[in-house]
C-alpha cells in the first residue's frame, strides 16, 4: 500500500472508531432515552425497542474499540458499513412516511437532527468505513 493511503486509512480508522465509541457510550448511559428514539421511528414494537436499545450501543462500542485499536479492523469496518446502510434506510423511511423526528444518533433528547442531515453524515461514515475495509490489512 502507498504510504499516503496507509496513513489516510489509519487516520480514518481511528476517527471512525472514535465516532462509534462516542455514539455508543452516550446511548449506553441512557438506554431508556435511546429506546424512546428507536420507538419514534415506528418500526419495531415496544419490547423490541428496548432490546435494540440495550444491544446496539454495545455493537457500536465494540466496533469503535476494534477500529481504534486496529485489531480486526476490517471486520469492524464491514460492520460499520452494514450499520450505516441500516441507519440510512431507516432515516429515509422516516422522510417517506413524513415523520419529523430526531435521528437519535448521538445525545438522546437533545437538539433535533433532521433526517437529511443524518443521512448525509451516515453516508460519509459509510464511505469512510468502506475505504477502511478495502484498504485495511487482512
Amino acid at each position: 500500500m502507498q504510504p499516503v493511503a496507509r496513513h489516510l486509512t489509519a487516520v480514518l480508522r481511528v476517527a471512525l472508531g472514535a465516532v462509534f465509541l462516542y455514539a455508543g457510550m452516550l446511548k449506553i448511559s441512557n438506554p431508556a432515552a435511546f429506546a424512546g428514539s428507536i420507538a419514534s421511528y415506528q418500526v419495531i414494537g415496544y419490547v423490541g425497542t428496548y432490546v435494540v436499545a440495550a444491544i446496539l450501543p454495545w455493537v457500536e462500542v465494540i466496533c469503535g474499540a476494534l477500529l481504534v485499536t486496529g485489531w480486526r479492523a476490517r471486520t469492524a469496518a464491514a460492520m460499520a458499513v452494514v450499520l450505516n446502510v441500516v441507519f440510512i434506510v431507516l432515516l429515509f423511511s422516516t422522510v417517506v412516511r413524513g415523520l419529523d423526528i430526531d435521528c437519535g444518533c448521538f445525545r438522546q433528547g437533545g437538539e433535533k437532527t433532521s433526517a437529511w442531515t443524518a443521512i448525509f453524515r451516515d453516508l460519509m461514515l459509510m464511505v469512510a468505513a468502506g475505504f477502511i475495509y478495502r484498504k485495511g490489512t487482512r
Partner: protein
Amino acid sequence: MRSDLRRLATEMAVIVLVAAAVGIAWNFRLLRDVWQGHASTASAPSLPAPNAPAEPLPLGLIQIKELVDSKEAVIIDARDREAFRKGHISGALSLPLGEADRLVPELVAKTPKEKLLVVYCNGYDCHDSKTLGRRLLAAGFGQVFVFEGGFPEWRDAGYPVAQGGE
C-alpha cells in the same frame, strides 16, 4: 475469497453476539421491567396489576399513541400550568408535580384505582413524570406508566397537540 467472506461473516456474528450478551446483562433490570410492563398492558389493560410495582414502568411512543386513541388511559401532564397551556397531548389532564399534594387526592376521589395512568413531562431529562408516577402508585393506583419521551417526542412525531385549558 469465499473463506475470507465466511470468516468476515463469522467475526461480525461474534461482535453481535458479544454485544447482545453484554447489552442484555448490563440492562437486565430495565429489560425485565419493560417485559413485565408490556405484559401487563397487553394482556389486561383494564385490570389492576396483581403486584403493583414500586416504580412506574416506562412506555414507548407507539403504546402511548394507542392508549390515547383508544381512550383506555388517563394521560397526565406533570409539567407546570404554563407549559401545559402552551401545548400538551390532546386529552391530557394537567397535574403539575408542584400541586400534587392537593390534586392527587382529587384524582383518587374521581378515578377508579384500576384505571391505567400514563404520566409524562418534558422529555428524557425531566424526572417529574417519574416522581409523580411514584406518588400515584403510593396513592393506590395499580397501573402507572411513564412516557419518558414526554411532550417533545409526542409533538415531534406529529401527533395531536392541544393548547390552553387547565
